[in-house]
């Protein structure tokens, strides 16, 4: 079970969190004209990298904040965690 550092609460066990998917996806701006292809990419297409990945976790049984976690998907090593509003490297 992973041990995730929540920037708001400290290190907590994985079972306090819900996984939220790829954190690098950016929602297209509201009211912006975009092609089917672009929208399709946003809604459906996700990379599933082996190795370093920036992902979202929701501290659902804690502070209820969404956080960003930089994790190695094959070793589970967590390099760094960020607040939702923090810029990632």
């Amino acid at each position, binding site marked *: *079970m*992973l041990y995730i550092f929540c920037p708001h609460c400290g290190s907590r066990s994985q079972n306090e969190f819900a996984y*939220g998917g790829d954190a690098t996806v950016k*929602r297209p701006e509201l009211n912006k004209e975009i092609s089917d292809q672009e929208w399709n990419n946003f809604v459906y297409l996700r990379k599933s990298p082996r190795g370093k990945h920036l992902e979202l976790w929701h501290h659902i049984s804690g502070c*209820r*904040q*969404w956080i960003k976690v930089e994790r190695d998907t094959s070793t589970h090593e967590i390099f760094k965690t960020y607040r939702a509003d923090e810029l990632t490297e």
Partner: protein
Amino acid sequence: MSQDFRLDNIGMVNRNKKISFTFNGKKYFGYEGDTIASALIANGVHLVGRSFKYHRPRGFFGVGVDEPYAILQLERNNERDPNIRATEQEIFEGLEVKSVNCWPSVNFDIGAINNFLKMFFPAGFYYKTFMWPPSFWYKIYEPFIRMAAGFGEASIKHDKERYEHKYEYCDLLITGSGPSGLASAYAAAKNGARVILAEDKPRYGGSLLTSDVNIGNQTGAEWSEKIITELKSMSNVIVKNRSQVFGYYDHNMLVMSERISDHLPKTQKYMPKQRLWYIRAKEVLISSGSIERPLVFGNNDTPGVMLSSAAKEYMKVYGVLVGKKPLIFTNNDSGYETAIEFKKNGVNPLILDTRKEPFSDIITEAKNLGIEIKFSHVVVAAKGYKKVKSADIAKISDNKKDLSNIENIECDCICVSGFWTPSIHLASQSGNKSEFNEKIDAFIPKKSKQKENTIGSANGKFTLEETINEAFDKGYEVSNKITENNNKVSIPTVVEKKSSEHDKFWCVPLPKGKSYKRFLDFQNDVAVTDIELALREGFRSIEHVKRYTTLGMATDQGKTSNLNGLQLVSDIENKVVPQVGHTTFRPPYTPVSIGVIVGREVGKHSKPTRKSPMHEWHEKNNAVFVDAGVWLRPRYYKQGNETLFEASKREAKNVRKNVGICDVTTLGKIDVKGPDAAEFLNRVYTNAWLKLPVGKARYGVMLREDGIVMDDGTTTRISENHYHMTTTTAQAANVLSHLEYYLQLVWPELNVNVVSTTEQWAGAAIAGPNSRALLMKLFPNSDVSNEGLPFMGYKEGDLFGTPAKIYRISFSGELAYEVNVESDYGNFMWEKIIEVGKEFQIQPYGTEALSTLRIEMGHVAGSELDGRTIPHDASLEGLVSKKKDFIGKRSLSRSAFTKPDREKIVGVVPLDKTTSIPEGSYIVKDPKAKLPNPKLGHVSASCWSVEYDNPFSLAIIKDGKNMIGQKLFAMSPLKNKTIPVEIVSSHYVDPEGKRVRA
């Protein structure tokens, strides 16, 4: 039976406490501190089971966790516990155990005929032998094999024992209390680290309890006693015996099962049987020791053949002799220690050493004691069926290929030692790669993957001095890293006998003309010939060989067999062991009971049960409950002998005719607050929200980004910057996460806060033509007239002194209101409404009537908003704004969502007006069409319309709008029904919505 094999002046069992137990119905005595194994051996019992495949007699092979043979079934308080290792289970007064895998009895086992039909059970026999004719497999072969196989029978009764879970955090977890575990725990604890020391056996000390060594001028046993006593007294140390750390997971999470009352005759109240520990450790020291390897020779599975270290432990810990005419067969010095122990206890052993001219202190000591030793000698085969009676021994040539001078000598046990295998399981589970160490012919952990180190004999260190020094250093080093303290304890001096090198020889060749079975895996009956066959048949990868032959796949997970199996494969392939590699170690290290994994989360505790504040009232008024997610909701209120159908019809009718009250507390409620709340709702919902005035509610639909409807509900503007959102019961948690996602990650610039208030409000829906009259009596000081509180209006009121919120919203399609009060006043509110409502013929209604009312009104719910529908499909397209953008809007213009014949909700009425249509039925044009019959859609919800007194269903079908008026068929292959139906509008009752505005 008397304990003929019990020694008088040795052992750690409590001789003052005699304990009786039964084995296969027969009564035996042992002492407190005995295991089933030691007590039975004391009584001269060596036949305890039958092997898995050939049903060969099984005795005891080890003395602990590695035991492959003595798997018994325990009976206790009328409960059955299968897969109990006799070498681990301590006896208690009244314990009942029996043998498994034998019928009718362990002494006379019909299945043993398999032993003479060996040719039908080669490696992979289940792929070959029982293949023809195919129809025989299910009826004859499989039932027969299933009856013959298996280790015991699980109880089918509810397990009444209590199991618990516990979470613990520590600086340092140490797995195993042998010399390395004790020394490192002591060093770390003295340096201020928070330490957990786990020992799977009842007694601490590991090999120190049985080896003839001296630490700091004390015997090994005395020293371990002293250390453990001191550790127990320290507040920063948790010491646990009977506790097996069986799994090493990510981020230094280890799981341990503690057997708390397995050794007690009866569990005391509130005392769990076992406890599962989840331990998050900053650092881990794996000091799990090593397990002796067997030597392979003919019939080496005969009862009486056992590990030499086990024989020694039976003597030194339990005061029990495994035999009175022992033969020691060894390729290293360990066998000598056992022989010396026998000699000290008045028994004359014979040592067969495979080595030619070994020399060491301990060999000299054995010689000086007058123990007979034959060098360059091996056991060719054990003789005897249910117990070793003699052994064929021989001289072996220097190249270890040829046998000579074969002679038979009498013996009653054969103690084997093929050197030691480090227990690297936990390190491997942690993710370590292992490396083969030529010096010890075994794998040891390579580089630490997580924050862990392996120490002592688990790391291939087989001298005590080396072990103790390393452990003290590691304990200090690791604790220093965490605590930054510098308290170093002094390392005691160690006195031990120096050992000579072991012999790499491990498998005795067959003499000419003999075909003895030489077993590698004792639990799954895998012999040398099986591995040879698998390789002849082309299996190469060790993972494949393992699965084909089942080597190491039994409940002991090959603790004693794996390395010999690898040796054999590499010998045949002319490779070396590291080239062959080893199979993967996975948790659990030892079998763990399902009970302890589940813990308290059984039955009603498997998930929380949520109840509304009015729950007791519902119970008192004969409510029959239904699970709605984790909530319990009244499904109907039973009067007399009413059925569900009758009761729900009565309740729904009463709503249409008079007035009903329904508990709607379970609806999700979310407070949305902040200056940008209106803008936020405008983006979340498909319809417009910017102009909703204070004191008004609006129905809204929210989508996922892919355009699918996520949830619906009403949201009310309580004040300028405060909205009260409701969600469906099922989606409440998801909607909150959804809102938080957009506020925190997508539009952080919006100044809005959301919080769940579901538990804060108790809700009652009051529905029916009499509802306003009732409301007027409930709130005499508020204007609840049609003008004062119009449809979709909101107002605060005073309910007999309790502040209440009144929403004029309707799910039933009738004139209806929802009254909310703070949860603590929920029951008060409910009782007042019932009391005042009497004169208006009020009746409570449950979810079944609620469904009937909404279905015949064509109001959609979860069965229509099923994760596949877009607003159009549910006839909600009128709520989709064309002007503004919102979550999921862009998806709605995708081609599949704009097709002209897109599915749409319709009503379905059977032509005969009497046959109810099963939910899930297909709507088809031609019931006799060729399969697969092209379906137009499915029936999502069915009810008995109380308005028209005939069945009515909702369905979502292709091109629904243009289907209205058509005669089609509803088919339910599940219920084997085909019903001619007419498609009608989904708004079956009051299509203009006059009633809600009345």
